[in-house]
């Protein structure tokens, strides 16, 4: 039997007693569970394993009773232990004497056992087999792929409806989204593009200076920014900034039942919410891309003039000679593709969002991740195609 350990609390000077649990079995095969001390949820308490083992063993226990006379203080920690003992006793059809328990504990235990555990909630606790998990993941993959294709199809149909004059979104909403995707994104696009231009120029300069060919820093920065980097960096910024905002807006509307309100009024969320966002981002992306190109070249120019002793006109002429019109068109093509991809991925994740705050967070994260993956894959495909076509 466990002994009571009394301690003096050094902070308060009061006596504290560690919780203890013991049991004995009488000749009449009555199992008496004895608890002592102060049972508090903020300190460890003894396990009921010994008692449960006795209940599980076939040694003919006829009844269970509790002796809590030595308990000086109690809370939920004591209740959990008592509840375990009572539930196991009931499983084994052993009568439990609750009359000796203090009134408060007895009432709480009655409350806890008044509603039987629901077994058919469809949430099994048994671990799923590997095969089951693989099967489920495969089905989920096909399901989400189907949803994605449906969404793309619906978006395309909404786009075609625009030309038949049956679009439903409001001009004021469209203007607001254009403003958010365009003008309001300029500061961050300026900063990032300028820095990317600077970084490219620095890295290039270090290598090219070894051959005395630092003049080609202008070519490097100009071609890289205009052909691909301007578009890619703008797309990544817009995925993190505007794409995340689209997903969060639509996700929150899902949580607040605003999307349901559109549906029951027969207004398609695709026409009213997704299409203006797609159009706005696809229209703004090339403009932002051109702006990012200029800022990137400006970054290169700062390094060229400031660090490589090039003159302003020299750098300008070198850049002008290096960049072909083709490079600009390829960059713009990239940006249009990215605009479509980022807006589609973000709106898809927003519309698919569940009905909780966590789901909105997941939708936002998923929107950014999907957008960035799409951007990188699309860049690789366009680069390979351009290479094959020799442009």
């Amino acid at each position: 039997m466990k002994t009571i350990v009394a301690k003096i609390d050094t902070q308060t000077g009061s006596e504290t007693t560690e919780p203890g649990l013991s049991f004995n079995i009488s000749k009449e095969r009555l199992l008496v569970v004895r608890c002592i001390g102060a049972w508090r949820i903020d300190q460890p308490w003894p396990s009921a394993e010994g008692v449960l083992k006795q209940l599980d063993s076939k040694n003919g226990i006829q009844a269970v009773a509790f002796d809590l006379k030595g308990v000086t203080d109690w809370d939920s920690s004591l209740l959990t232990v008592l509840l375990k003992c009572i539930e196991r006793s009931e499983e084994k059809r052993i009568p439990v004497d609750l009359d000796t328990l203090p009134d408060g504990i007895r009432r709480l235990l009655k409350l806890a056992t008044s509603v039987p555990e629901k077994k058919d909630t469809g949430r099994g606790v048994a671990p799923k087999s590997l095969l089951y998990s693989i099967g489920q993941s495969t089905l989920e993959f096909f399901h989400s792929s189907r949803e994605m294709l449906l969404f793309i199809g619906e978006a395309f149909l909404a786009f075609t409806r625009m030309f038949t004059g049956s679009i439903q979104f409001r001009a004021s909403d469209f203007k607001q989204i254009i403003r958010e995707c365009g003008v309001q994104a300029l500061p961050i696009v300026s900063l990032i593009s300028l820095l990317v231009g600077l970084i490219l120029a620095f890295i290039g300069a270090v290598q090219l200076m070894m051959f005395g060919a630092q003049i080609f820093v202008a070519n490097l920065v100009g071609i890289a920014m205009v052909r691909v980097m301007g578009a890619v960096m703008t797309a990544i910024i817009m995925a993190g900034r505007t794409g995340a905002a689209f997903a969060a807006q639509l996700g929150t509307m899902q949580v607040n039942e605003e999307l349901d309100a559109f549906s029951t009024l027969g207004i398609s969320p695709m026409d009213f919410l997704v299409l203006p966002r797609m159009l706005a981002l696809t229209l703004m992306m090339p403009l932002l891309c051109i702006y990012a190109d200029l800022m990137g070249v400006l970054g290169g120019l700062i390094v060229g003039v400031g660090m490589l002793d090039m003159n302003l006109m020299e750098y300008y002429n070198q850049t002008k000679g290096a960049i072909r019109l083709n490079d600009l068109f390829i960059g713009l093509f990239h940006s249009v593709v990215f605009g479509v991809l980022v807006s589609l991925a973000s709106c898809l994740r927003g519309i698919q969002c569940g009905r909780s705050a966590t789901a909105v967070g997941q939708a936002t994260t998923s929107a950014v991740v999907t957008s960035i993956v799409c951007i990188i894959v699309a860049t690789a495909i366009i680069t390979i195609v351009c290479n094959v076509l020799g442009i």
Partner: protein
Amino acid sequence: MPKKEAHITAKDVTMAYGDFVVMRNLTFAVYRGDVFVIMGGSGCGKSTLLRIMIGLKSPARGCIFYGDTDFWEAGSEEQHRIKRNFGVLYQSGALWSSMTLADNIALPLGQYTDLGTNDINEIVSLKLDLVGLAGFEKFYPSEISGGMRKRAGLARAMALDPEVLFFDEPSAGLDPVSARRLDDLILELSESLGATIVIVTHELPSIFAIGTNSVFLDAETRTMIAQGDPKKLLADSTDPRVRRFLTRGEEGMGE
């Protein structure tokens, strides 16, 4: 007394989320002009039934008829026509947060009518007057209280003078006075507009104050166990589960 015409009929409806069946074998009729209450304990599937009735979720089995038309078997145009006669007040109000109250009400009017801007503005003002929100046209949903949002939601639900109004827990989250005011408003509108009203609620004062017909969903047996006028159910029902619910647990606890 002339026989009442069934406006909405549920036939053998089973509702499920994946493999988990929420309710099965629901068969009932909502008659024209009824204030029909869908009642039952928390989590029994009342709101899911409402979502099936308003076309947001398809039933696992069974049919919902609007007049003679099976909603879930109808084509999209027919569904659209039926939805045109709906007004729905969601639990949260579900006002479009990026729009003012006036724009929220004007949107369905703009979508479904050929009214000019001035006419739409007049109707918007009228609807806001009816729900006691005159002068709040330029307010955004985030700038008004929960009770006001519910009333604004009601104004939007009534924008197109629908034949049937659905309410999902209209009194939820409201203080007793605001809840009572909303009940009175619903009753007043129902009587004056002649609209059929379907309400999901477990608020007993509301159920007895406005309900003329009802269905009681039981989470334990996963089906409906009573239907009829809630006041008559209170007086006549012998089912302990119904009595327990309608008497707020004062009766039927011993079962």
